[in-house]
Structures are given as structure tokens and as C-alpha cells.
């Protein structure tokens, strides 16, 4: 969806201004190079224009806060912060695929909630009749002795597999609606969001599902050797996604479709299929993130991630992923997520009255967004 009113293509597009008909030489005034402190400015420009801008920004922010917040660098806190990155990263990466196609997926949150509930229902080891006897699954799927896969040898992996499949299916529904029936992505995913969130609450009649097997919970904070499992998952997804986008046929075609669907179709790209896949990936990632969140919370939650949409899209957009399609990299998403997590963490450590937290958060996001605009302009001049 094009919500941009500034000249369409930022930095990477090269030249924020269209050179126009049969470009008689590039348009736009040259960079103002005739100024003092040229070297300093060049350094500034370099930092500003670099791919890693948002990362630099985060580091700067962290250093700037250091003196106020010694505990920011406490080993435990750093560990927590890092552990908070991965689930968000996974779901945000999913969103990135969709954003590249100039779409948007609001249903990721309810996707996470539903898969969380379903996964939990399958493996829960025991549940209280008082709470669950009224819920539609009682007797068939749920009993005092838990769900169908409870205590089974491969119960947990199977359950996770099912979660991922269902997540992907939800994505597929979105994808088909958008790609085949040409429905506006925003509306499609808004309605599926309402729908599946309602289903997630309906199945367990609002109850959280606790008593999940340790084999599952361990995914939330367990380690393999020194490495936390969520880190492995998150990093794995990130690397995979990065390769998928930058090194494969699908990746190239995804960008093409996001840039110009008509030209792509005529060039023999299966536009509809590519778009559908993007949504499937978004669904898959949501489900995977749901595994991580559910595990760390040690329960299936019908309201999981209810308020998270803003962070998911925000993290992407702040890092320069364009809502009008064709632009987006996994590294950007990573930096955006780091930025948001860092922001949340510092706001949490700072002893602020609750209302000023929102104000500060707003200001920081604003600052970051504005710097991004400046870099777009600078880049435009530079071209």
C-alpha cells in the first residue's frame, strides 16, 4: 500500500527524483560539496547513508544512555535484551516478505495466538475440568489427562509441526485472497485477524492452557551448550531468509513483483504464486515465533501478541522497508528489531512514570524516522 507522500523511491532506488523523459542528463542540483569541514561532513554522510544506519543509531543511543543507566550493561540485562530480540525478529522477518510485495499482514498477531492455543491443546499434560469443561474441545481433544499428544514420545515435535502447518495455512488463505482475488491486503488481513483471534479465544473459552511439557517449555529459555535455543532459531531464520531473498530465484522475483507486478507478469513471473508464498512465509514465521513466545511464557495464550502489530511493522519501517513495496532486507529488519527491543528495554530500566514512557517512546521513534528522511534526502542529493 502506498502511504508515502514523499518522492516514491528512497536511497536504494538511487535519486529520489525521476530524471524524467529520456533523461537529458541526471536531474537535481549537485551535492553541496563546496562547504567547510568537508571531511567531517563526509564521515557524517557515510554513517548516515550506510546500510547499518539504524544499527549505528542503536549503538549511539545505548552509549548515550550508559551514564544514566549502569544496569543497562549488566550481563543479566544484556542477556535478557538479546533473548527478547529473537521471537520478534522471527515474526518481523515474516512481515518483511509481505511488505516487499507492497502488501501488509495484520493477521500475524492472531495467527500467533491461534497456533499458540492449538499447539498447547495438543501437548498439554493435564487440565482442570472446572476451567475447561465448557470449552468446545472438551471431551474430544481435551480431558483431565491433557491433549491427544500428551506424553507421546514425539508429541512436542509433532505439535510444533502442526502449529507451523496451521500458521502457514492461515498465510496461504491471506495470500490467495490477495493474489488471486485481488482483494486489498489490508482488508483481507484485518478480517482474518478478527476471525482467527476470535477462534483462538473461542476454542479454550478464554482460558490460558498451562502445564505444557518441559520438552516444549525448554525452547523458551533452554540452551544447547552455551547458546540459547531462541537465538539458534532466530539466527537460523534470519540467515535462511537472507539467503532466500538475496541468493535465490524466488528472492529476485519477489522484489520484481513488488516493484512492478505488470512487467513481472509479462516477463513470465508467476506473480500470484510469488505473492501467495510471501504470505505463507509470513504465516510460517508467525507460527514459529508463537512457539518461542508460548514456550517462554510456558502456556498457550488465546491473547498472545494481541498488541504487537505496531512493533512488527514499526521495526521494519523504521529500518527503511518501504510500505509501497520492492524494498526490504533482512539486515534492515534485524536492526529495526534491535532498535525496538533496545528502546523497550531502556524505557523499562528507566524509572519513568508510565505515561511519560509513551511520550519518550514516541519521541525516539520520531527522531529515528526523521533521521531516516534526512538520509533519504542526502542520498538523493548524492546521486
Amino acid at each position, binding site marked *: 500500500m502506498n502511504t508515502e507522500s514523499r518522492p516514491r523511491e528512497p536511497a536504494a532506488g538511487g*535519486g529520489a527524483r525521476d*530524471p524524467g523523459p529520456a533523461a*537529458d542528463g541526471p*536531474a537535481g542540483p*549537485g551535492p553541496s560539496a563546496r562547504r567547510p569541514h568537508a571531511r567531517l561532513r563526509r564521515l557524517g554522510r557515510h554513517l548516515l547513508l550506510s546500510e547499518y544506519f539504524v544499527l549505528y543509531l542503536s549503538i549511539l543511543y545505548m552509549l548515550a544512555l550508559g551514564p544514566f543507566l549502569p544496569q543497562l550493561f549488566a550481563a543479566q540485562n544484556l542477556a535478557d535484551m538479546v533473548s527478547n530480540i529473537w521471537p520478534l525478529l522471527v515474526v518481523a522477518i515474516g512481515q518483511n516478505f509481505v511488505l516487499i510485495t507492497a502488501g501488509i499482514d495484520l493477521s500475524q498477531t492472531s495467527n500467533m495466538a491461534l497456533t499458540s492455543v492449538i499447539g498447547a491443546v495438543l501437548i498439554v499434560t493435564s487440565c482442570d475440568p472446572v476451567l475447561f469443561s465448557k470449552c468446545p474441545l472438551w471431551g474430544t481433544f481435551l480431558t483431565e489427562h491433557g491433549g491427544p499428544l500428551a506424553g507421546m514420545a514425539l508429541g512436542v515435535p509433532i505439535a510444533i509441526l502442526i502449529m507451523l502447518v496451521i500458521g502457514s495455512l492461515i498465510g496461504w488463505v491471506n495470500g490467495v485472497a490477495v493474489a488471486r482475488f485481488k482483494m486489498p491486503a489490508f482488508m483481507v488481513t484485518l478480517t482474518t485477524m478478527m476471525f482467527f483471534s476470535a477462534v483462538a479465544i473461542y476454542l479454550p473459552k478464554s482460558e490460558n492452557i498451562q502445564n505444557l511439557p518441559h520438552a516444549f517449555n525448554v525452547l523458551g529459555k533452554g540452551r544447547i551448550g552455551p547458546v540459547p535455543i531462541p537465538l539458534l532459531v532466530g539466527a537460523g531464520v534470519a540467515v535462511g531468509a537472507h539467503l532466500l531473498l538475496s541468493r*535465490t530465484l524466488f528472492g529476485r522475483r519477489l522484489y520484481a513483483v513488488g516493484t512492478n507486478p505488470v512487467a513481472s507478469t*509479462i516477463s513470465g513471473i508467476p506473480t500470484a504464486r510469488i505473492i501467495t508464498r510471501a504470505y505463507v512465509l509470513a504465516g510460517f514465521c508467525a507460527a514459529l515465533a508463537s512457539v518461542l513466545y508460548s514456550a517462554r511464557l510456558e502456556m498457550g495464550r488465546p491473547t498472545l501478541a494481541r498488541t504487537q502489530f505496531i512493533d512488527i511493522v514499526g521495526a521494519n519501517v523504521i529500518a527503511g522497508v518501504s510500505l509501497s513495496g520492492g524494498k526490504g532486507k533482512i539486515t534492515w529488519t534485524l536492526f529495526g528489531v534491535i532498535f525496538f527491543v533496545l528502546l523497550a528495554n531502556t524505557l523499562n530500566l528507566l524509572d519513568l512514570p508510565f505515561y511519560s514512557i509513551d511520550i519518550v517512546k514516541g519521541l525516539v521513534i520520531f527522531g529515528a524516522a526523521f533521521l531516516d528522511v534526512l538520509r533519504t534526502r542526502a542520498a538523493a542529493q548524492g546521486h
Partner: protein
Amino acid sequence: MHASMEGRGPSMEAPEGAAFQFLGVTKSFFGVPVLREVSLSLRPGSVLGLVGENGAGKSTLMNVMGGVLRPDGGRMLLGGTPYQPQEPGDARAAGIGFIHQELNLFTNLSVAENMFIESFPTLRRTPAIDKRRMAERTREHLAQIGLDISPGALVETLSPGERQLVEIAKVLAMQPRIFIFDEPTTSLTAKETGLLFEVIRRLRTRRASIIYISHILGHVAELADEVAVLRNGELVATGPTAEYPVPRMISCMVGRDLKSIFPPKASAPQEEVLLRVEKLSQPGIVRDVDLTVHKGEIVGLFGLMGSGRTELARMIFGVDRYERGTVRVGNGLLPRGDPRAAIERGMAFVTENRREEGLLMNVSIADNIGLVALPEFARAVTGHLRRRRLQEATAQKAQELHIKATSYEAQPAKSLSGGNQQKVVLAKWLLAAPRILLVDEPTRGIDVGAKYDVYTIIGELARRGSGVLYISSELEELLAVADRILVMNRGELVGQFERSEFAEERVMRAAFRQGDEVRP
């Protein structure tokens, strides 16, 4: 007409009452000079044909005049008084009407609204738009250029030609004294072009001054009183049209004597049939079309704008669906509405508009060229791309077709001139080594040099044994490149001419049979 040319020949004084004068105008981007001391003056009641290759500086000069760009040096005089536009508005106010090459119409608004978007007529003492008055005035303006469409019609429902004429009417409505026409005929039918020329002549008789820019030199010769030729930002020649027949214009433009506009014909048709279309029909668009393309043959498809030729190509290639009929490649039946099937069978389709359907404007040249053949560079299961090979292949193609760019990897397609953009589109398809090539107006709006290259590329492809269906509304180019010409009119094939029977007027007559396309 007088024009001064620094350093070349005796510089003459600009005459009294020159409508407009450039005096030593210079302009450069990033230190690269685009206009070098251009001095030129325009007489009232005359048409000046401004020609030159893409990148010669025509548009820059006109943008300076139109207030879009500011000159680095030199002066401009409007009717003898200094003229320094700060923005397009100033030029408009000063009575300079600029008809841009690309359309600036709002497709979701009506014709009338587009004409008055800058200053709507309102009911007295209210902010409300006076729709009736607006409609009346619109009708008048449209009548001036003989365009008979309802002022209330949404622009998105108009044909390209009609849109172009609306754009022109819009400028006429401002009643300027000086007109700039930048490639006005690219999307006009022959009939509409005729109308436009009448309008221009009428303007001339009303003492208006016209600058007419076009790559169709025939038109310039037909219309202009004087010609001025730009090359690399310099005014290299100027004088009465009589002294500048088309060949001389060309040699001035390219700076050397081009043997001719067209390369010698290299290909010759063979027996084997590559493409066979039978009884292709889609109500309201085409009816019972039969055609074949042989190995090594270039089949010209001539027809006026709106005759259904573009639609036909789109259906053959599978972009649009059709109700009845069959398309065979070799002897395999081609499924309907599936471009990918067509491509897998070795078909390629160069569409008529590069911007919307041909290129990914913000994407690099290399990636554009790689787009179609991409699967060939991907490993089977993983889809992992062999990027080095891809890079080499695209670069090679780009060089083969002489695409002028600083970096194929970094430079986005939109930064190229029209001609080079068209070459990128061709390169994209050639990389997939097509056996059947559908080309729709491949030389529209590109300069003579680039045209020559395009003809050569297509001819070479045919010589190597591919078949080409070449759609064009420029008959002379078909006569030059085609082995056979099919004529289309109102969705039907109405004539076929072997190379032996090529003759301009016969083909034309066929094309105009039953008059031009009807408009309700």
C-alpha cells in the same frame, strides 16, 4: 528565421520582434555540460522543428524555457524583454504553453476537470465549481482540435491518442503565444496526427510561435518552417526546412553520414512454421484472426491505433484471454492466458509501453536484463542462483546491444534514455533466446541511432532463424524490415502483402478501408 551560432559561421543579429530568444544559454549537471552556449531565436507565426538524438539537450533546453530548470549562464528574451522563470507557473503566466512528452492527466477525473484542474470556473460568490460552464468551455476547446468526446468522460476510459489530444487541448485552453510540442504524436493515430497538424497550422496563421520536437523527421519536414539541430548540447545547424531534407537532418544529428535510416535486410523466410494463429476471436476486440509466422521471417502487422493489433499480440502471448480460436507454437497448442507457457515455448513479447509493462524502473539494468532468463541460472531444487554466471551473461548482452551506462549493476533502468531503455527490454528477452518474437512499436519515441540499432538487432534475430511479428504504425519502417505485411482494421485482418507487392498507398488504403476506427 535567424539564429546565431557561436563559432560557426557569421553570427547574425536577432531580428526585431523575435517572439523568443535564447542567448548563450548554458546548463550542466555535476559539471557535465548539457547545453553549451545555445543561442536561438523564434519568429512569430512560424514553426521551428527542433531535432536531435536523445541526450542532445532538447528537453533540457525546453525545460529551461518552461521554467522547470534554471540555466547556469546566458539570457532569455521574451518578445525582446528579459525573461527569468522561477517555476513552471511563471512560464505559463508569460504565455508559454508546454505540451510534455509524458502525459500529466489524472485518470480518475473527467476530461473537463483535467482541463481546468489549475483554475476551476466557480459559480458567482461561491466556492462551488460551475460544472455546466466548465463542460461548455471544455466542449469548445475539444472542438478546436476536432476531438468529439463528452467532457464528463473519465480519462481512464479514453484511448492513448484521445488522452494526448486532451493534454494538447488543455494547453490550447490557456491560449499561450508560444507553444512547445515535445513528441506530441507518439500515441496518435494517423487521423489524429492529421488533426493536430491542422491545429498547429491554424495557430501559425494566428501569429503564434511553435517549437516542434519530434523523432519522426518526416513530420518535422512536413510541418516546420525552419529546423534547428542539437548535438551534445550544441546548436550544430539551423536554417529553412527547404535546405534540410531528412537525410541532411540525420547527418547533422548523428554527426556523420548515416548510410540510411534502415540497415540492409539480412533475413529471409524459410518453410517451417513457428507460430500459427487460427480463428482467434474476442468479442469487441478481434474477430477470426488467422496468421502464421515462419522461421526467419519478419511479419509486419500494420494497423492504426485502436485497430486491435496490440490487443491481438497480448492475446497471442497470453497476457489477455480470448474466447475462441487457437494459438500453435510449432505444433503444440498454447494454453490461453498464460504468458509463462508462451515463454517456455520460446516466445518473447516487447510491449508498446516500456515504463509500465517493460521495465522495473527502480531496479538495476543487470537485474532487468536477467528477469526473464532467471530460471536458467537457478539450481534445480534450492533455486539458488549462479550469480557470477548471471552477471556475466547480462553484462555480455548489454554490451552486445551497446547499452550506454556507467554501471550495469548499480544504475537503475529509469536513469537511461528512451533508446537505451528499449535496448534493455530487448536484451531481457534476447537473453532467453526466443524463437518467436512479438514486438509492439519497438522504435516509438527513440532517436534515429537507437532505431537503427533496434532494426539491426531484430533483423539479426530473424537471420538466426527466429520468427518475428513486428507491430508498428510507422509504415515506412515495416516496408523496410518486414518480409510480409498484414493489415489490421477494427479487429480484423483486412489485407496481406508479400514483399514483392509492397507499396505505401495500397497498404494505407487497406488500413483505412471502412474509414478510420469509429468512435461512438
